[in-house]
């Protein structure tokens, strides 16, 4: 429920792609006790910048395990990392190729769509 409050949390978010110089963007979001970092990222996408790239799916269940990022330098699920008034730094996972903003390449290799995908034989042959 949206209660009126004037509290704010501050996030410093790594933006851009591997091809650009590192850039951090500062966002202020309304803050309530118990919020997760992902709550703040989703708020930013709706209210400030729809181009912010983040990866997540289940939002609350902590079941999909797709939402990992560096929160204040630690690898965390953004959906369970507690938001604090901050400033909190959020960056993509470090050991994976960087795609954009908070999205690193965590797709298993055999689940990627290759640019030059071999046309597969139809009718059973593999």
């Amino acid at each position, binding site marked *: *429920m949206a209660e009126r409050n004037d509290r704010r949390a501050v996030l410093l978010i790594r933006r851009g*792609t591997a091809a650009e110089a590192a850039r951090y963007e500062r966002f202020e979001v309304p803050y*309530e*006790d*118990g*919020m*997760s970092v992902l*709550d703040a990222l989703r708020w930013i*996408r*709706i*209210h400030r910048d*729809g*181009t*912010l*790239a*983040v990866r*997540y*799916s*289940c*939002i*609350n*269940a*902590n*079941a*999909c*395990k*797709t939402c990992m990022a560096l929160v204040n330098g630690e690898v965390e*699920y953004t*959906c*369970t990392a*507690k938001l604090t008034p901050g400033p909190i730094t959020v960056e993509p996972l470090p050991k994976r190729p960087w*795609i*954009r*903003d908070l*999205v690193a390449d*965590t*797709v*298993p290799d*055999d*689940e*990627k*769509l*290759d*640019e*030059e*995908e071999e*046309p*597969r*034989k*139809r*009718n*059973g*042959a*593999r």
Partner: protein
Amino acid sequence: MPHLESDVLVVGAGGAGMYAAIAAARAGASVVLLDKSLVGRGGATVMAQMTVAAALGHQEPDDWTLHLADTLKAGRGLCNEELAELLCRGGPERILEMDAWGTRWAREGGHIKQETAPGHSRKRCCYVDFLATGPAVAGTLRRKVGETSGIRRISNVAVVQIAVKGGRALGAVGLSVRDGRLATFHAGAVVLAAGGLTRLYARNSASANMGGEACALALEAGAELVDMEFVQFFPIGHLAPRLVGMDPIMWDPFRYKLGGRLLNGRLEEFVDRYGGTDFGRYTATRDLASYAILKEVEAGRGSPHGGAYLDFRHIGEARLREAFGPVIDRLLANGIDLTKTPVEVGPIAHYHMGGIRVDGKMETRIEGLYAAGEAVGGANGANRLSGNAITEALVFGERAGRSAAARARSGAPPWEASLAEPSIERLDALKKGKGSPGAAWPAMVQSELQRLMWENAGPFRTGGKLAAALERIREMRDELPDLRVGAAGAYNLDIQDWFELRAMLLSAECVVQSALARRESRGAHQREDFAETRPELERNQVLELRDGRLCSRWITPMGRVEADRG
């Protein structure tokens, strides 16, 4: 543009999609299994925490016919009885197959343990401890998909169009989020298993990927939808205090294992007042409970966040820990001590009974286009029993995969590049960026749509509010070309959001239009201006697109058992 060929294309890799892929592959088909998220992680299946209903008869004597009778009763006369029968008859085989594949169903004395859930007349609901049913089911299927030869998995591709030529489905066009480009998929048959639409609502239990794209894709491909007005609102979704890392519908197993009490803002029991028989232990069906809670709120007797209290203080710590061990600690970490304070709960959108209209082979009226899982409408009629949805995903998935493999064997018409044109044109227009700098962007409009649906097409509906919603949704559709999207390229979610929003608006329009036309209250569809159930409306509404316009008609529920046997 990447182009893939396979016998069977499966769109959506939740429980239904993964089972479909396995079944198609073991019938000898080559399979491409696509998901806009990561395979096995994007939808509802991995999030489920409760139970799966199947008449195994392990806990006590049971039979699929009893499960069917319960399912039909909950469906308030609207079930497609052929589909309901398939679900109930097929459940046990799927549960046992999953058991053989390594799903660790909770056991007791050597057999699979089964509990009762509201509306089930027998102990028939299996689960995996603790609150891990969905992760266990998704994990088993993901592993099995990986081990099955013939399945090519692809993550991060969102299907934006089903390709149809001359009334025959022959593939799909997808948006690869990774690089912002389109890809085409040619197949002998397509299974749409892209899940439900509960993310259309501001209060929901949904993942990020449940905006009703399956229904929109099917409708645009020429298939029919059925029962779109029937959205199940889960009565006791978590409202407060803020709880992270746990699903908002986690309270159901608590209350049926332990007997939680549902109390209004004055700490009084109240479900009995609305025709339930609660006796201090909440066992009412979902639609009745939702109704009772919201009526209390309306009467000024709600909890502070607009719901009711769920109270376990009478249970005692020892029993709480015995039943939910580690979950109790997770709650404490969120500052919630059930022995001391009740939590606040209220209705949230949770499941969609309506969806794509299929026959007993899971085929739509478009040849070669199949559907499975929550995307399918009809099996559960006007209201779904707890535990029936995962069973539906597994049973229908297996069936759709098998049917699609058989269809693909007869070959598919050849691919033509022109089939992808509508999607190419849409993407090109977006990239040209007509949207002015001051314009709204897709995620923002999605959020507006969610609020609109919650306020105007939620658990309690009136003709006036529905009509207003319909008007606004149509405006929003007209505004789609003017939205602002960021530069194309790697992982631009704006573009994915735009295609998603386009589908969400179409699905939302279907829900609202059907809800407006159903001038009665039945099951999960409650009209404040038409409170009675009208026997003459014991009929299903079928929707189709004709020249871009949504047209509906009423039919007698399909597959009535009496009729079939008569």
